[in-house]
């Protein structure tokens, strides 16, 4: 049975049976390339604000911000986070979730180029929620999207500007992003997704 409807519950899987797609070095290189692309595309980092989407997007945002600082050699590019929990379109379908931190740098986002950073781009709904959150926080000049992994299966007209790695997947698979800050090591794994209760292969 193949499901053509989006799962209304988080997609989970067992990382111990997943196979590695990117190792630590690959992750580092991808982030470095992304930082260069951001600087190139925006002709520098003058008005750039990097905001990570919790949880892992925040760590990635900090790393990207640090790499941009290294490239430009200038003062720190503002880095922060924007929690999207309150803007999710699937809130009513699941139990309530705890909030994560929204940390907007002191100069705000008005007139800036906001680069959203997330670990995995999948249906696009998280990013849509982030765009709604941003519109309540100010009026950026532009919003760009950087993701470590694009796994396809978009349900909304959303695309990433900067991609670490394209990993085509089936809906029976899931992508695990592990980061030093949260998981003790850097890696991207691909493995089977947990099936909905009651279904068998």
């Amino acid at each position, binding site marked *: 049975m193949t499901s053509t409807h989006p799962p*209304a*519950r988080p997609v989970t899987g067992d990382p111990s049976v997943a196979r590695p797609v990117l190792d630590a070095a690959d992750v580092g290189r991808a982030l470095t390339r992304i930082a260069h692309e951001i600087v190139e595309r925006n002709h520098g980092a003058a008005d750039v604000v990097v905001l990570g989407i919790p949880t892992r997007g925040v760590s990635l945002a900090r790393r990207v911000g640090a790499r941009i600082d290294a490239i430009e050699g200038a003062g720190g590019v503002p880095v922060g986070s924007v*929690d999207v929990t*309150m*803007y999710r379109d699937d*809130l*009513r*379908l*699941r*139990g*309530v*979730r*705890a*909030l*994560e*931190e*929204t940390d907007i740098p002191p100069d705000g986002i008005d007139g800036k180029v906001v680069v959203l950073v997330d670990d995995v781009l999948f249906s696009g709904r998280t990013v849509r929620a982030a765009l*709604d959150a941003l519109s*309540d*926080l*100010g009026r950026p000049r532009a919003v760009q999207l950087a993701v470590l992994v694009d796994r396809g299966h978009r349900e909304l007209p959303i695309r990433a500007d900067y991609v670490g790695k394209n990993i085509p997947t089936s809906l029976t698979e899931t992508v695990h992003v592990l980061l030093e800050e949260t998981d003790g090591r850097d890696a991207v794994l691909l493995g089977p997704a947990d099936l909905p*209760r009651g279904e068998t292969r």
Partner: protein
Amino acid sequence: MTHPQTALARHLLSAADLSRDAALLVLDTAEELARVADRPIKKLPTLRGRTVVNLFFEDSTRTRTSFEVAAKRLSADVINFSAKGSSVSKGESLKDTALTLEAMGADAVVCRHGASGAPHRLANWIRGSVVNAGDGTHEHPTQALLDAYTMRSRLGRIEELRVAIVGDVLHSRVARSNVLLLSTLGAEVTVIAPPTLLPVGVEHWPCAVSYDLDAVLPKSDVVMMLRVQRERMYGGFFPTTREYSRRYGLDARRMATLPDDAIVMHPGPMNRGVEIAAEVADSVRSTIVEQVANGVSVRMAVLYLLLGGALLETVEAVA
């Protein structure tokens, strides 16, 4: 910030309903939501399409407004229902009102009533969530939550804080909720009052008891003064307000005996000159004004946690 429990039970009727994890969840959520007040657009879309009814049988502009602002900041629709005189109309008001609210499709009813246990009865008659905004002399859980939030935000912690609650404990719903919540969160609570204003059975409460305010103040990090009604004098609970004030009022002299960082709280409204002197209420130690702002954040958190996701039944069906 991960929480093992990410939902509250269907109602918030008593501070005793909240486990330590649930209480911390409310406080942490409130901390995030407090930032909404600093944004140009003070709104989140989370409770769009939900209806919150403020059902107030007792006048309280302050608490009602606080809940109203909280609900509106979450984009909920708010209906204010002021129903008076239930003791006169013998509860027809309560049940009939409940049926009316059901028909209106209230998702949450914030209820303040003069009779202890009224929200519990209401919870039997409506499908939505009931938030107790103060029932008789029983409890006022969101007050306790905002008090705990205020303590944490001023003093950085709640665990092992020495909290003194002073005044008419017998008739105080604020005292009951605070004793329960603070002990759940690991504070050391002492209640101080003349013996006539302490309930029989207070010895079973998770707090210490004292009749001597001057002895306890130097060892307190937080002093919470409760309002004392003059009518209690007529019930013989104390001979005169002058004597009450002399023995249990917080004046400037007593305030000076507090440790340097101690704070003074009051749920309001105050009887300036009776339980609290004007200069104390207006001093830097006093948290009375910020308690009001904190009330909105805490109530936003409660409404979000009760209504923001699927009802528990729906979650189980989907999972």
